[in-house]
Every structure is written in C-alpha cells, then in structure tokens.
C-alpha cells in the first residue's frame, strides 16, 4: 500500500458566499457572509429564519453544468462543484483511462423535489409528477454526477448526517492507499429544503438571526446549502501525470460519540477522540496544527461540546480557530466537503479565516476564535465535522512537501 502520500489535486465549491473557488475565497477574505432571507421556496418561516442560499437558480445551475433543470438541486450543486474540482485537477480527459472512483455524500438527496410531489400525491395517489421523485434516493444524485462526468466503476454515497462528506474524502484516501483506485472525486452536496428547515426548527436549534458560532450569546444554527468536492490522487500519479498537489491528506479519523441521537456529550468525547486519532495518524502533535476550521454550528450544545474537546486537546497550544458556518450557514451533508475546500484554500493562501459575528467568549471556556482575516504561515490545518447520531470526523490537510 504505498503510492506515497495522498494529495488533493483539484477543489471545487459552491456556497452562499460564492459560486466558484475564487468567489468563495474573496468573500472569506472580505468578511462577506451569505446568510439572508429565504428566496428559494415558499414557507411560513420566510421572515423568521435566515439561511445561506446559493445565489443561483436551478435554471442557471443547469445551464452552467450543461444538464437538465428538472434535476434535483442537490445534483445540480454537486455537479457544479465536482466539475470545478475535476477541471482544476487537469484530469478531465483521463477519467476514462484511470481507475477512478466517485464518492459523494448527501443527507437530503432529492428531497427538494420530493416535497413538491407529496401535496398532490396525498390528495390522490395517482397524482404528483413521477419525475419529482425519481431521484429521491441519496445515491441518485451521485449517479447523475457520475453520468455527467463520465466516471464509471466505483461509485458510492455516504450519509452520516453532518460528517458525511469528510467521510467520503476519508474513504477515497483509504481506497487509493490500498491500491484499489488511482483517483477519487470525493465530497458532498445538499440543497436547502422545507423538510430540513422544518426539521431543524422542530428541534428548536435554529437562530432567528444570523448565527454566532462560539459566542456566549449564540442561539442556534442557520441552515445553508452547497457542495464541496476534492480530487484525490497519490504522489506517484501526480509525478507521472504532472499534477499539482494543492494539499496532502495527512490524517483523519471517524469515531462515534454514542451519547444521544442529536446532542453531543458535554465533554465532547467523540470529537476529542476524532481529533486525537487524526493527529496520531498524521504523526503530528497538537502544536503542529496552524488552524482549526471548527464544526462550529452555533448551537448551544455543539459549540460548548466541541470547544471543551478542543480546549482539552490543544491546551496551551491552541492555534487560531474559526467556524466558517457564520459565512455559509450549516450545509449539512456538504459541510465537510465545503470546509475541506476552505481548509485547502487556507493552506494555499497561507491565511486563516475569521469567525464572523463573534463578540463574547463562552463563559465556560473563555475561547476566543480568530476575529480577522489574517495571513499566517501554515503547515497543517484541521477540519472538524460532527453530526447527528454521534458521527464525529476530523481530518488534517498539510502543505505538500
């Protein structure tokens, strides 16, 4: 199992703060959040719940990705980001000749269209347009992306709630390390839906104002949507194909908090274990990490739990920390992928991103996140994704040597 280190050679992202890598980076640098009013669909919560919407309609997304506008928005967002990542990698023409895998992740799948099918269907079981449910299953968005990008062979989808797309990247790296695949396009995508909006609202963890991760006065999260994908390739292939490594996947871990279905343990044992194991795999100590992109949803529970774990693990060696969900909202299944791309951007640009709208540290912890955009030398960046069901994943990206 030695193809050398596993590198990221392409990245693609679409979110509330930009449709491309460049747009996202600019927004991150300028402190420009994408949280705002709901425009994508009708809902009673339109005036009361801010969200992070991608600022493109399905029609435009379909046009830009050369696909059908009747596809699920989850598919369209995913395809947009995956295509950007593949283009950046320079491997577009080699996808049919190398052993390539597509590992995507999503929690809503085609629910954006399914929820439009149901009202008519509930009145009459013969009503409702079948094309609104044909792509309901999570795996269907992945198949559409595979078909559009020409990837055959190994295709799969992960759904572990908010940690989904980090897990996709982890599996991709493992399959390449084991010599089973040459290249993997890995990441995740989720569209905003009434279903998730109402679901999170019923759990009473949404903030009626723009979210404030890690702040003492935080009230909850804002939902977002988007997609983030990376292209993974081993060092040996990078050399053979003259690919440019953007970052190295140096360590990762997947653990389970096993505390409660929707709440994290107060001490953040699952998060602590995930971060600790990721460091161990990367052969690094806490002091080596230059920046942590937190999961930082803005909920009372996550931020206290994650903060507790971070403080315990890093102690005096705490690097700059921030949650970019204050920019994008919580993109659920896509968050790991989106934030992986942000972490790679941080390494490429040698900078750390601010934690917007932070004012007062949590009294229990006293942690002060990064407040400004700042250029800093960085060698290793950690990104956390902790989900419902106790699924905790952490990943470390490093500057390629």
């Amino acid at each position, binding site marked *: 199992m030695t193809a050398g280190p596993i590198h990221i050679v392409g990245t693609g992202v679409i979110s509330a703060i930009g449709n491309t890598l460049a747009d996202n980076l600019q927004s991150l640098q300028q402190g420009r959040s994408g949280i705002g009013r709901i425009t994508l669909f009708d809902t009673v919560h339109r005036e009361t719940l801010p969200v992070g919407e991608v600022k493109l309609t399905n029609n435009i997304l379909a046009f830009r990705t050369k696909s059908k506008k009747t596809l699920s928005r989850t598919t369209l967002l995913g395809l947009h980001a995956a295509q950007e990542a593949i283009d950046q990698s320079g491997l577009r023409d080699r996808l049919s000749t190398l052993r390539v895998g597509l590992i995507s992740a999503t929690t809503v799948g085609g629910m954006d269209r399914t929820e439009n099918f149901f009202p008519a*269907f509930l009145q009459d079981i013969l009503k409702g347009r079948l094309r609104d449910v044909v792509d309901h299953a999570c795996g269907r968005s992945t198949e559409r992306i595979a078909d559009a990008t020409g990837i055959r062979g190994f*295709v799969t989808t992960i759904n572990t709630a908010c940690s989904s797309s980090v897990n996709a990247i982890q599996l991709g790296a493992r399959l390449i390390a084991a010599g089973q695949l040459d290249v993997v396009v890995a990441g995740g995508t989720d569209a905003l839906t009434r279903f998730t909006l109402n*679901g999170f609202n019923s*759990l009473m963890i949404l903030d009626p104002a723009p979210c404030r991760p890690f702040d003492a006065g935080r009230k909850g999260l804002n939902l977002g949507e988007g997609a983030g994908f990376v292209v993974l390739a081993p060092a040996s292939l990078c050399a053979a194909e003259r690919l440019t490594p953007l970052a190295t996947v140096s360590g990762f871990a997947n653990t389970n908090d096993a505390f409660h*279905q929707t709440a994290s343990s107060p001490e953040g044992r699952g998060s602590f274990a995930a971060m600790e194991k990721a460091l161990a795999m990367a052969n690094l100590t806490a002091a080596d990490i230059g920046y942590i992109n937190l999961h930082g949803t803005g909920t009372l529970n996550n931020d206290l739990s994650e903060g507790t774990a971070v403080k315990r693990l890093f102690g005096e060696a705490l690097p700059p920390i921030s949650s970019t969900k204050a920019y994008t909202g919580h993109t659920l299944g896509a968050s790991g992928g989106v934030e992986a791309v942000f972490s790679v951007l941080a390494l490429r640009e040698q900078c750390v991103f601010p934690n917007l709208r932070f004012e007062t540290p949590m009294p229990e912890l006293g942690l002060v996140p990064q407040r400004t955009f700042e250029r800093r030398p960085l060698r290793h960046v950690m990104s956390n994704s902790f*989900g419902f069901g*106790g699924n905790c994943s952490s990943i470390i990206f490093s500057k390629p040597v």
Partner: protein
Amino acid sequence: MSLYILGMGNLSPQKTWEDETLLSQAFDYQNQMLTSIEPDYEQWIAPQQLRRMSRIIKMGVTAAKMALQDAGVEVPDAIITGTGYGCMADTNSFLIRMIENQEQALNPTPFMQSTHNTIGSQIALLLQCQGYNQTYTQESFSFETALIDALLHGAENPGQQILVGGVDEITELSHVIQSRFGIFRRSLRSSLDLFRKPGKGTVNGEGAAYFLLSAQRPERGRRVCLEGVRTLYKPSQETLLAETEQLLKASNLRRQDIDIVLSGNSGDTRLDAAATAFCKAAFPSSSIGLFKHLSGEFPTASAFALWLSTRIIEHHHVPDFVIYRDLSRPMRNIIIYNPYFGTHHSLLLIRAC
C-alpha cells in the same frame, strides 16, 4: 485479505432467525410485497429505547444484536451500515405532517429518526460503541460498499471485530410510489412463482441483516470467509467479465472452482435474460441459484444472499427452492452476482476457509 464471518442476524420475509434447519419451508406472498417475519422486539430491546424506534430501527438493531449473540461478542469495534432508502417511514411521517400542519407544531422525533445513519447510530448508542461508524446509501451498492469498507478496515486494523449490515424497509406509501414506476408485477399471486411465471416486473422486499466480521480466525464455530467484493456502475460486458476474473484471481481461484452462483435475477424477464447469460458465460460449470423470490427486490437484498451463502456452506446443502441449475457440487466457493435495474452490478466471493 479476507474476513471471517463470526456471527449473523437476519430478519427477512423468510424465517431466517431461530432457524435450525435452513429454510425448511418457504413463505409465500400474494401481493408483491414481501415483508419481514419479525420477532418480539421486546425480547431484544428495552421498552425505554423501543418507544421511539420506528420499525426499520427495531429491525436493524435486533439483527445487529442477533449477530453479536451468534458470535458471542458484546460490543464490536466498528459498525458499518448500508441502506438504500434509509428510514422511509419517519421521513414520510414528518413530510406529511409538515404539509398537513402547514409547517406548524411539528413533532421532532420523526425528523430526528429520519436520517439514514440513525440505524447505525442507534446500534452504537445502545452498545456504547465509540469506534468507527459509517453509513452507505448507494442503491444496491449500499451493503456492498459497507463490506468493501469492512475489508479495508480489517486490513488497516487486523485485530478488530466489525459489525456490517444491510437494512431496508417497505412502507405502504413507498410501495405505492414505486409501483407507479411500473417496476413490480401487477398480478403475481404467489411470490414463489416469480421465476416460474415469466413477466414484467419484480416483487418488493425488505430486510435487516448484520454480520460480525474479523480478520482473525475464530477458535470455534463456522469457518466461512468473505473474500472480496466488487461494485460496478454501468460496466460493459467485457468489464464485468474482466472484474470477475480479477476477483477470482485475487483469491487464487478459477471459474471452475466456483460451486454455485447465487444470482440476483429480479424476476423481470426484461432484465433477467442478461443476468442469466452472464452467469452462464462467466461460470459455465457452476450451479446457479436464485434468491429474490425469497427476499424480494430491494437495495440491500445482497445481505440476504450473504446470509444464505454462509448457511449453504455451513449446511453443505442448497435448499430446493433456491436452485435454478443444479450441477451437484460440494458447496465450498460461492459467488453472489447482484444486478440491479441494469445499472448496478456487484460481485461477492464467499468461501469455506
């Protein structure tokens, strides 16, 4: 690198738990919906936990506990689950209430339980297993990817015991929607006649099967191994055959060594012709067996097939209603070939070891 199957738990439309003999009788279904024969869940799950669980969670958790009991293990090191549709009853329940109540006063429990990873997470919670936990949802690759992950995980962590499962449920509503796509038989009055009476369409199925796997050879008990798994999305015939060769070669086997191919023909003659042709071309000297008239067609039906293969090897016997072509061989090496609606093809290699 193979994994020993230390324990199994299977809830299916057949009596596949607390069964001493292998499928001594086959259960027949009249309405194209093959639903599971379920145990008394209160024997397996405490009331305080049971109260919140929808049927699919009960099925998954119970199958997992059965597998662990079968293996004599209390807590696994990792839990990997495959589910094609996820928790549909809870998803539909929340969606319907959302529409009917116009987004007001919605109960959080069904939403909380609707995410695909609820099954694997509930198992982890009940067992207090803080190890690796993953959920795959890629149609008929869901369980297969879970196995591929387990094979990888076993190679990376040789001492670990990995619980792997495939779970999917039928709900009335989902059956109605799927029926509108024309994928089921219209009027098949006996599911056991699925292959005897040619027609367009398959029958709906469901099940929950978990397996405890380990790279370490067990001291006692069954000696059956999972040797390898391949998933192929829209492969050409050449690729399918080539990958089959690769799978066998990795275990030093030739096609003549395969005693039986359990083929996932769905009963839809439009698709089955290609499946049967492939089996005969790839394994001309092997017996062929069928299983979807027993399990129904659903994304994780291959978990039923894995259970069946293991039992076949243990019992040295293939039940009559599984056999399609009998070439009377001792059952040591089994290939499961699972085609799914023409796009997903998977291969699993199981051996006596």
